[in-house]
C-alpha cells in the first residue's frame, strides 16, 4: 500500500517538473496541429490526404536512397539554421517582456546588408556576417528606443519597420540583380570569398554544398544564450525586467537600457540568421517581392513550441522547418504547399493555451496530493 502511494507520488513529481510539462505541452500542440492539418487535407481532397500528411512528416525520408535523403536533410538543416536564429531573437526579447515581431524586418535588413556587402562591395564572408549583425541590431534598436522612451507598442512599430525594411532592401539590392530576372546575382560566381566556409561539413551530407558552418554556429549561439540567460547578471536583469518592469527599475536596474540592449541583441540574432541563409547561396533575394519573408514569423512558432527555452528552441526550429520543407514535396496539382504554414500557425495558436494547460495540470496534481494526504491522516 505504502509502496503504491510512493509510486504515485514519484509519478506526480515527474509530471510536476516544469521541463516535463513543457515537453508534454509542446508534443500535444504538435499532435493536435498535425491532426487539424490532416482534416484540412481531407477537405481539400480526401483521396490522397493520408499520403499527403505522411509526405509532410517524412520530408526528406521520401527519397529512396540514403545519399539523396542525406542531401535533402542537409537542405532542411540549411534553412533550419536561420529559422533557429529568428526564433532565438524572439525568444530572447520575450524574456524581457518584449514581443519582437520585428524579427522578420531585422532578418530582411540583415539579408540586405550581407548581400550588399557580398555582391556590391565584394567583401569576405566574416565582414558580411558582421554587417548583417550590425544592420539587424541597429534595426532592433529603433524598436527599442521607440518602446523605452516613447512608449510605442513594439508589435505595431515592429510591423511598420518590417515593411519599411522590405521596400528599402528591395531598392538597395536593385543594383546587384540579374538583368533578366528579379533575383540578385549568384554569390558563388560574383564573390566566392563571401560564401560561408563549410570546413568539410558538406561531406557528411552527400556533398551538399549549401551545408556550412552556419548550422553548428546557430546551435552554439543557442547554447550560449542559454548560459547568458541562466547564469549571468545580465540574463537575470533581462528576466527581471520581463517579469516586473517597475520592480526591476526600483531595484536599480536600468530598465530602459536593458530594453534597448535586448532589442539590439534580438535584432542582431535575426540579422545573423539572414546572413546564415543568403551567404550560403541557397537562396537569392528577389527585389520585386511584395511580402515580408515568413522566416521571422515562423520563428514565433519555433520559439513558443520550444517552450521559450533556447535548447528546446533548437528542436522546435528543426521540427517547424521539417514540416515546412515536407510541405514542398506535396503534389502541387492536388494540395497547396502552404498547408505546412497552416499547421505551424495552428501550433502557435495552440501554444496560447499552454499556460492554461500547465495551470490545469498543476492544480490537478495539487488536488490529488491533498486528497492522498487527507487519506493518510
Amino acid at each position, binding site marked *: 500500500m505504502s509502496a503504491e502511494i510512493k509510486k504515485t507520488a514519484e509519478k506526480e513529481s515527474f509530471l510536476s517538473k516544469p521541463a516535463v510539462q513543457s515537453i508534454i505541452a509542446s508534443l500535444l500542440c504538435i499532435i493536435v496541429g498535425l491532426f487539424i492539418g490532416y482534416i484540412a487535407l481531407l477537405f481539400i481532397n480526401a483521396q490522397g490526404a493520408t499520403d499527403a500528411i505522411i509526405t509532410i512528416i517524412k520530408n526528406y525520408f521520401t527519397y529512396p536512397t540514403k545519399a539523396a535523403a542525406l542531401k535533402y536533410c542537409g537542405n532542411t538543416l540549411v534553412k533550419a539554421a536561420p529559422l533557429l536564429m529568428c526564433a532565438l531573437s524572439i525568444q530572447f526579447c520575450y524574456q524581457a517582456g518584449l514581443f519582437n515581431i520585428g524579427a522578420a524586418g531585422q532578418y530582411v535588413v540583415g539579408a540586405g546588408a550581407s548581400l550588399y556587402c557580398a555582391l556590391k562591395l565584394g567583401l569576405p564572408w566574416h565582414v558580411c556576417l558582421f554587417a548583417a549583425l550590425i544592420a539587424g541590431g541597429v534595426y532592433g534598436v529603433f524598436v527599442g528606443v521607440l518602446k523605452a522612451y516613447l512608449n510605442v507598442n513594439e508589435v505595431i512599430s515592429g510591423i511598420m519597420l518590417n515593411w519599411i525594411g522590405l*521596400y528599402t532592401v528591395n531598392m538597395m539590392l536593385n543594383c546587384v540583380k540579374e538583368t533578366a530576372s528579379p533575383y540578385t546575382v549568384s554569390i558563388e560566381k560574383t564573390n566566392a570569398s563571401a560564401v560561408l566556409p563549410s570546413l568539410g561539413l558538406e561531406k557528411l551530407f552527400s556533398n551538399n554544398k549549401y551545408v556550412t558552418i552556419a548550422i553548428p554556429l546557430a546551435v552554439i549561439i543557442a547554447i550560449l544564450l542559454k548560459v547568458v540567460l541562466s547564469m549571468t547578471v545580465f540574463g537575470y536583469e533581462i528576466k527581471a525586467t520581463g517579469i516586473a518592469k517597475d520592480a526591476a527599475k526600483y531595484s536599480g536596474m536600468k530598465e530602459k537600457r536593458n530594453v534597448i540592449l535586448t532589442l539590439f541583441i534580438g535584432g542582431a540574432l535575426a540579422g545573423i540568421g539572414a546572413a546564415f541563409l543568403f551567404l550560403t547561396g541557397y537562396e537569392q533575394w528577389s527585389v520585386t517581392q511584395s511580402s515580408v519573408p515568413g522566416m521571422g514569423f515562423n520563428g514565433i512558432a519555433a520559439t513558443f513550441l520550444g517552450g521559450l527555452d533556447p535548447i528546446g528552441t533548437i528542436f522546435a526550429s528543426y521540427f517547424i522547418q521539417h514540416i515546412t520543407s515536407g510541405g514542398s514535396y506535396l503534389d502541387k496539382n492536388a494540395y497547396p504547399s502552404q498547408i505546412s504554414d497552416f499547421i505551424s500557425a495552428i501550433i502557435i495558436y495552440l501554444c496560447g493555451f499552454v499556460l492554461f494547460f500547465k495551470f490545469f495540470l498543476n492544480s490537478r496534481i495539487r488536488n490529488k496530493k491533498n486528497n492522498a494526504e487527507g487519506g493518510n491522516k
Partner: protein
Amino acid sequence: MVLLLQYTLLFASVLILVALGGCFSEHSGVINLGLEGIMVMGALGGALTLKYIDPSLPKILIVLAVLVISVLCGAVYSMLLAFACINFKADQTLVGTALNLLAAAAATVIAKSINIIEDPNNVSSTVQYVEAKKALVVNIGKFQFNWFMLVAFIALVCAYVILYKTRFGLRLMACGEHPQAADSVGINVYTMRWAGVLISGMLAGVGGIVYITAGVSEWKFENGVAGFGFLALAVMIFGQWKPVNIGLAALLFGFFRALSNVYSGFDFLAALNIPGSVYNMMPYIISLIVLAFTSANSRAPKAEGIPYDKGSR
C-alpha cells in the same frame, strides 16, 4: 485629382472600419492584434461571394450579400481570439499574431484549393471577381463612388452613438477601464469582452473586403493585406481611441496610402523621379512618426491586455 480623392476616401474607409473594430475591442479590454488576419478572412469570404454570385442580380442585393458574408466571416474568425483570450486567459499578443499567420495560410490554402479543383494546372492563390465587383461602385462623373464609403461613414456615426450614448457602450468601456468595478455592479465582464471582440471582427471583416476591392478586380491571397490591420491600429492610437478622431486620422493615412497608387498621375511628382518603393513605404513611415509622438501620453483603456480573472477582484 479626382482619382486621388477617390482612393483617399476608399482607403480611409478601410482604415475607419478596421480601426473602429480595434477601438471596440480595446475599449472592452482586449488588444486585438489579429485585426490583420480577420481582415484577410473577411476579404476571402467577400471575394468568394463576388466570385460565385450571379452578376445579373440587382446591385443592392450583391452589395448586401458581400457585406453580410464578410461580417459573418470576420465575426466567426474573431471568435478564435475571444475564446482563447477571454475564456482561457491566453497571451493576447501571441494569439493575435497566431490569428494573422493562420489567416494568411488558411486563405492561401482555401483559394489555391478552389483553383486546383477548378483546374489542376492553376496553382495560383488569386481570386477573380471582375464582373460582380462592378455592382459595388457607382460612377458620378469621373468620381467612382463605392458603397462601402457610405458603410464606413454609417459605422463611424453608429460607433460614436453606441460608445458614448448607450448603456451598452458605456458598460463596454467600463470593462476596459476597470473590470473589477464593472463586475461589482453586476456587469458580466466576459460577455462584454466577447461583444467587443465580435464587433471588432465584424468591422474588420468588412474592412478586408473593401481593401481588396479598392481599384483591383482580383486578389492574390498569398499577399494577405500588407500590414493594413496594423496601420489601422496606428490610426486608432493616433485617434486616441475616439471615433471622431479616428475618422480624421484615417483620412490622413488614407491620403498617403492613396498617393502610392496614383503618384504617377501627377506631373510634378512623376518628375521628381522618386522610386515607387518610397511611396509604398510612406504610410508605414508616417505611422511610425505619428506613433512616436502620440504614444507617450496615450489614452489607452487602462485594463487592456490584462485577462480578467474573477478571483482577483
